C-alpha cells in the first residue's frame, strides 16, 4: 500500500498532463499499473529489433611465428585473436577479446601485427578515427598501449613497415595516405603524406608497404572527389560532435563557398608509389581496367617472396592475384572464386608465406577462410574460422545512418 501511495504522489507531481484515469488504475491494479507507467515517459520497448549478435570479421593479420591470428570485428566493436592453426567447424574460441569503452575500439577496420614487438595495430573508421595499439596478450576492457589520431574520420587501412619502423594508413574521406613513425602516438604528425589530384587516390582502403622493393600499394574504389594536397577533413566538426567535444560558438563559422562540384566515378584501381613518395605524388604504376576485374578492392597484400600482389576483391567474391609488377589493364594471373571457395564479399586478407597460405575474411558469413597460397578457381578452404555457427544469417548493417520505408512492398531500406 505504501508503494502504491508513493506512485500516486509521483504521478501527481509529474509535469505532464497525467490522465486521472491512470492514477485510478494505479491504485486499483497495483503491479499491472506499474507496467503501464514504465511505458510512460517514452521508455518504450521495441516491437522488433533487427540485430546481429555475432562478431563480424573485417580485416585479418597473422603472425605465423607466434601462431597468432588477429581479426577486427566492426559489428560488436571488438579486436580478437585466435590460434592460427585452429581447425574446427564450430564457433572458434578466441585467445583474447579486446572490447569496451576503455579500449578505444569502435568501428574498427584495418589490422596489422608487429611480430617483433608483439603488438596489434588496428584502425578505427569512425567516431574515434584513431589507430589503437595493443599487446598480443591484451584482454577485455583495457586501454591501448597507445593510440594515434590519424584523422578526424575515415581511417581504414593500416600497414606496418618493420624494416623502416613506420606505420602507414589510408584515410577514405580525404583521399590520403599518411606515414608515421611506428611508435607515433596522440597527435603526432605524419612523417609524410600522399594526397592531391595527381595521386590517383579515390576512396582508398587497403594499403601495403613493400619494404623490400621500396614501394607502397593502395586499393582505391570508384568514388572520387577532389581533395588538395594537405587538405584536412572538411567535416572535422562532425567528429567533434561524435566525440562530444563540440561547443557551439567555439569554432568559426565556415564561409559559404558553393563551388562547381568535381565529383566523378572512376575505375577502381591499385596505385603503386615509391615507398617514400610524398605530397601530390604521381603513382609509379596503376593497375586499372576491365581485364583487371577489380571491383571494390579492399585489403591488399604483396608477397615479396613470390613477387605477387593479392587483392580481396569484394565486388566479385574473389581473391585476385597479380604479378607484383603488374601495370595498366593487366589480367590477374590467377584467382580464387566460386561457390565452393566460401568467399563472400571478402574484405580482409593476409598471405602467410611461412605456411604457404592465404587468408580472407567473409563478413557476411561471420568467417575467415584460408587456402593454399597457390590455390585457384573454385578451391575449397583448408580451414574455416567461424565467429558464428555455420549458416547463421547476417544483417549486414554496419555503421548505419539512414533508414527508409517502402510502403508499396512493406519493406525497410538500410544503406551502409
Amino acid at each position, binding site marked *: 500500500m505504501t508503494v502504491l501511495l508513493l506512485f500516486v504522489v509521483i504521478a501527481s507531481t509529474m509535469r505532464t498532463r497525467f490522465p486521472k484515469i491512470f492514477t485510478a488504475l494505479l491504485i486499483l491494479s497495483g503491479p499491472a499499473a506499474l507496467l503501464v507507467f514504465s511505458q510512460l*515517459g517514452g521508455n518504450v520497448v521495441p516491437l522488433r529489433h533487427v*540485430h546481429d549478435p555475432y562478431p563480424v570479421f573485417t580485416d585479418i593479420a597473422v603472425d605465423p611465428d607466434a601462431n597468432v591470428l588477429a581479426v577486427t570485428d566492426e559489428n560488436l566493436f571488438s579486436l580478437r585473436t585466435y590460434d592460427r592453426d585452429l581447425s574446427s567447424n564450430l564457433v572458434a574460441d578466441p585467445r583474447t577479446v579486446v572490447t569496451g569503452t576503455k579500449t578505444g575500439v569502435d568501428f574498427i577496420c584495418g589490422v596489422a601485427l608487429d611480430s617483433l614487438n608483439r603488438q596489434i595495430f588496428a584502425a578505427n573508421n569512425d567516431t574515434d578515427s584513431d589507430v589503437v595499439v595493443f599487446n598480443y596478450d591484451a584482454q577485455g576492457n583495457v586501454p591501448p598501449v597507445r593510440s594515434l589520431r590519424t584523422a578526424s574520420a575515415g581511417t581504414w587501412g593500416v600497414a606496418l613497415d618493420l624494416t623502416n619502423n613506420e606505420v602507414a594508413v589510408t584515410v577514405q574521406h580525404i583521399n590520403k595516405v599518411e606515414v608515421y613513425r611506428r611508435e607515433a602516438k596522440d597527435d603526432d604528425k605524419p612523417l609524410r603524406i600522399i594526397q592531391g589530384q595527381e595521386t590517383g587516390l579515390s576512396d582508398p582502403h587497403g594499403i601495403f608497404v613493400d619494404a623490400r622493393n621500396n614501394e607502397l600499394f593502395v586499393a582505391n574504389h570508384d568514388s572520387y572527389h577532389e581533395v588538395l594536397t594537405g587538405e584536412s577533413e572538411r567535416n572535422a566538426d562532425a567528429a567533434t*560532435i561524435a566525440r562530444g567535444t563540440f561547443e557551439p560558438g567555439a569554432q568559426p563559422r565556415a564561409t559559404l563557398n558553393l563551388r562547381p562540384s568535381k565529383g566523378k566515378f572512376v575505375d577502381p584501381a591499385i596505385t603503386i608509389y615509391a615507398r617514400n613518395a610524398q605530397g601530390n605524388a604521381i603513382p609509379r604504376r596503376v593497375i586499372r581496367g576491365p581485364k583487371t576485374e577489380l571491383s571494390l578492392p579492399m585489403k591488399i597484400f604483396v608477397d615479396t617472396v613470390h613477387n605477387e600482389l593479392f587483392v580481396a576483391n569484394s565486388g566479385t567474391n574473389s581473391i585476385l592475384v597479380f604479378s607484383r609488377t603488374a601495370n595498366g589493364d593487366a589480367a590477374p594471373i590467377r584467382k580464387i572464386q566460386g561457390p565452393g571457395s566460401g568467399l563472400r564479399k571478402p574484405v580482409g586478407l593476409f598471405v602467410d608465406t611461412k605456411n604457404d597460405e592465404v587468408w580472407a575474411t567473409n563478413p557476411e558469413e561471420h568467417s575467415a577462410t584460408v587456402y593454399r597460397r597457390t590455390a585457384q578457381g573454385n578451391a575449397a578452404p583448408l580451414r574455416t574460422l567461424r565467429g558464428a555457427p555455420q549458416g547463421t544469417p547476417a544483417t549486414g548493417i554496419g555503421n548505419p545512418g539512414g533508414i527508409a520505408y517502402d510502403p508499396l512492398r512493406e519493406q525497410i531500406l538500410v544503406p551502409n
Partner: protein
Amino acid sequence: MANPRIAVFARLANGNVAPVRVIEGGRTRLSRTSHAIAFDEKRDEIAVPNPFAEAVLFFRGAASGDEAPVRTIQGPRTLLEDNDELALDSVHGEVIVPTRQALLVFSTQANGDVAPLRIIAGPKTMIERARGIAVDPVNNIIAVGNRDPQGILIFNRTDEGDVAPKAIISGPKTGIYTTKGFTINPERKELIATVEARAVQVTRNLDESFVGIWNITDNGDVAPKAIIKGRDTLLIAPRGAALDLRHQEIFVIDKVQNSFFAYSWEKIMEGLRR
C-alpha cells in the same frame, strides 16, 4: 559489415535476419558512406547520396543485386559537396540535398550535370553543417538539423536564396545536443527527430539519446511533446527514422547498436506531454 550496399528487410523482420534483397556491387556506384536514404512512393524509386563521388543516385524501387542507378545527379553544375544526406518530396517531385551551408533542391527527374532548381543559402539562413533533413509536402516545410545554433531550422518548402528560417527549435528545454535523422507526419503535423546525447558514441550509454516529437509549428526553446527514451528502448546513438503510417510504427536505426528498431506509435503517444 560496411560493404557498400542497400539492404532491404521485410517490415516484420526481427532478430538476426538476412535482408530479403540487397543492392550491391560495382555497377551500383554506392560507397560505404551513405548516411541517408529516401523512398519515392509516387515513382517507386529509391534515392541515396554518394558523398565521396558528390552524387545522388536513383534506383528502381525493386532494384536488386549489382544493378546500376536509373539516374545520377553529378557534375560541376550540381554544386554537390559533402552531400551525405537528402530528403525527398514525392508530391512535388523534388529532392533536397544539404551541403555544409546550403540546401540544394533538384527535380527528382534530374539526371547528370544539372543545376539545382533552388538554393537556400546565406548568412540569414543560419545553416551550419546541416545534420538530418525532412520535407513535408503537405504543410510545405523543410526541417534541418543544425550544428550552430544547435537545433532544428524550419524553412518554407519553397524558400529560395538567403532567407531566415521561419522557426528555430533550439535551447536547453529541447534536450538537443545534436540531431541526425528526421521524419515528418504531415497528417498529425508532427516532426520527429533523433537526438544524440553528448559523447554517447564514446560512452555507449543507454538512456541518454532519444527520439523527440515536436509540432511542426513549434518555435524557440520548446521541449518535445513526446519522446522515445530510456533503457528499454535500447537506443544509444539513434540516426535515421522512418514512419509506417499504415501500421502506425516508427523505425529508428542506431549507429552504435548496428541495428534498427520498430516501435509502436500508439505506445509512444501514451507519453504525450502536450
